[in-house]
């Protein structure tokens, strides 16, 4: 994606933030979103407005459709043959499910980090360079070197890998691999980063490192994270969306608001039960 344009919008958004209330900027918005797997309605009538340059956590019991909602934000569900989506997802005011929208173009702007670290079986350097190349990078070798150093620094990984950039990405530890996956995502400078339980396969120290990284990144990026870990949601996110299941096992959005409010003063009994551990 075009670096120049991206920087411009960031500057614009910062200016707007200074002038108006920050929560006016919508990064992405689901409107009456329904997702089916075959005939099974997995997610029903979700309306969700995600704030820009904030971390939003999606929480809820297993199977309530958190991953499904997250994946519908960059049309990742298109890769599942049985999945079908109705409703709208508005990104910069444009419905990404409208006919004629290329999911590839959507994903260039809305990146994703997965539950299990999945670096490519390429070198650390290539893991980052590949995504940059396929997104139309035209610079020289030294431009690329700089970009990779800068990216790895932003991902808090540079010091650990600077002497072995040409080793396989798979030679890293799980936590380092996940930071590499975050690095390769931010290298293409998306607007939004989706993270589906990015720490669930990691040890506590790696988890804290990634949380710290997320807070740093949220100054520049909009981050949406699915997590099963209440403490994690409370620690990193500014907004939290709680999903729950209806009787026919469809996921619905139960409650959404500032994390601090949702955790200390939930409006909904089911939310309260869930966050206090009496449910799910």
């Amino acid at each position: 994606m075009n670096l120049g344009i991206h920087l411009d919008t960031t500057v614009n958004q910062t200016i707007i933030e200074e002038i108006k209330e920050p929560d006016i900027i919508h990064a992405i918005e689901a409107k009456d979103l329904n997702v089916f797997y075959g005939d099974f309605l997995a997610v029903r009538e979700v309306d969700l407005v995600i704030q820009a340059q904030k971390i939003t956590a999606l929480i809820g019991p297993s199977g309530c459709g958190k991953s499904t909602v997250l994946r519908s934000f960059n049309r990742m569900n298109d890769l599942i043959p049985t999945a079908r989506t109705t409703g709208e997802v508005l990104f910069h005011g444009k419905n990404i499910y409208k006919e004629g929208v290329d999911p590839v173009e959507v994903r260039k702007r809305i990146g994703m980090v997965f539950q299990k670290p999945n670096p490519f079986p390429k070198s650390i350097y290539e893991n980052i360079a590949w995504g940059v190349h396929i997104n139309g990078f035209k610079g020289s070798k030294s431009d690329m070197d700089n970009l990779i150093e800068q990216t790895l620094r932003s991902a808090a990984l540079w010091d650990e890998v600077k002497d072995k950039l040409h080793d396989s990405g798979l030679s890293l530890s799980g936590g380092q691999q996940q930071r590499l996956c975050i690095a390769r995502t931010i290298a293409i400078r998306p607007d939004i980063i989706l993270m589906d339980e990015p720490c669930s396969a990691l040890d506590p120290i790696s988890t804290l490192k990634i949380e710290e990284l997320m807070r740093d990144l949220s100054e520049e990026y909009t981050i949406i994270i699915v997590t099963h870990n209440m403490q994690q949601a409370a620690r990193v996110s500014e907004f939290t969306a709680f999903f729950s299941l209806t009787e026919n096992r469809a996921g619905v959005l139960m409650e959404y608001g500032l994390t601090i409010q949702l955790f200390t003063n939930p409006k909904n009994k089911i939310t309260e039960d869930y966050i206090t551990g009496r449910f799910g």
Partner: protein
Amino acid sequence: MYEAKNAQFPATSTDEADYMDLRSQPRIHESIIKGFLIFSGVISILTTVGIVVFLGQEALRFFTDPQVSLVEFFTGTVWQPQIYKFGILPLLSATVMSSLIAMGLAIPIGLSVAIYLSEYASQRIRSIIKPSLEILAGIPTVVLGFFALTFMTPLLRSILGNDVVQIYNVFSAGVVMGILILPLISSMTEDALHAVPNTLREGAYGLGATKLEVSTQVVLPAAISGIAAAIILGISRAIGEAMIVAIAAGAGPNFTINPFEAAETMTGHIVRISGGDISYDSLDYNSLFAIALMLFLFTLTLNILSQRIIRRFREVYE
């Protein structure tokens, strides 16, 4: 002892010494099964060793004959046992040429088919193409040989001219051999592509990659060791294939690099000579084992090579 113990199960014996008898017990059926498994393993090893020893012995008789020179065997360009000319190069060149032609066809098409089947094809199309490939793999090589002779060669001759393409020629045989190997390469490659975890594909799509970029730049390299193994197995098969070349490539050693000429491969030569009237224990007869030994060493080297390649890529990629 065993039965006596069993009879009083659970161990209720008040006799402490009997209860605490912890010596190892004979387990007859386990020993029998284990013995059978070891026996089966030994048989397969013995068979291999037996073949190699037999091959080596007969070949040794050839090589120790005063009329045979080792240097001539490897560098001579004439193979004419009647006049004691045993230069393997004409047979070798035909083998290499037909295999190259076969692989030149089977590798690109096989890889394309595999990528298409694994990454692009819908379930319905896959269910049409896969059985067709399996049928192709099941066609007897005799039939393929005649297909080369009676279809491929006339086709070539009508395109390139009768004066360019001989009736028996290495090219037709090579092309049809490629058709024979195609299912092997495509199905092994498809397995290798299939084994690449989906999380890797999702990671690539998540960066805004197109399907082509994901397939060729992420999935294909990740499956490289399986693909290398498929290719090497294909080469082995091409070198060892006898029937197609015996029928369509030509009946007489010919040292040439023109694939449109008739020439005889190592396997083709063995088929023809051993099928004719040949006196056992003659130099002629023994020479076949020398050729067979060369073929064996060829494929052995290829197999070792493929193991090496696989291991090296494992180190890099896993």
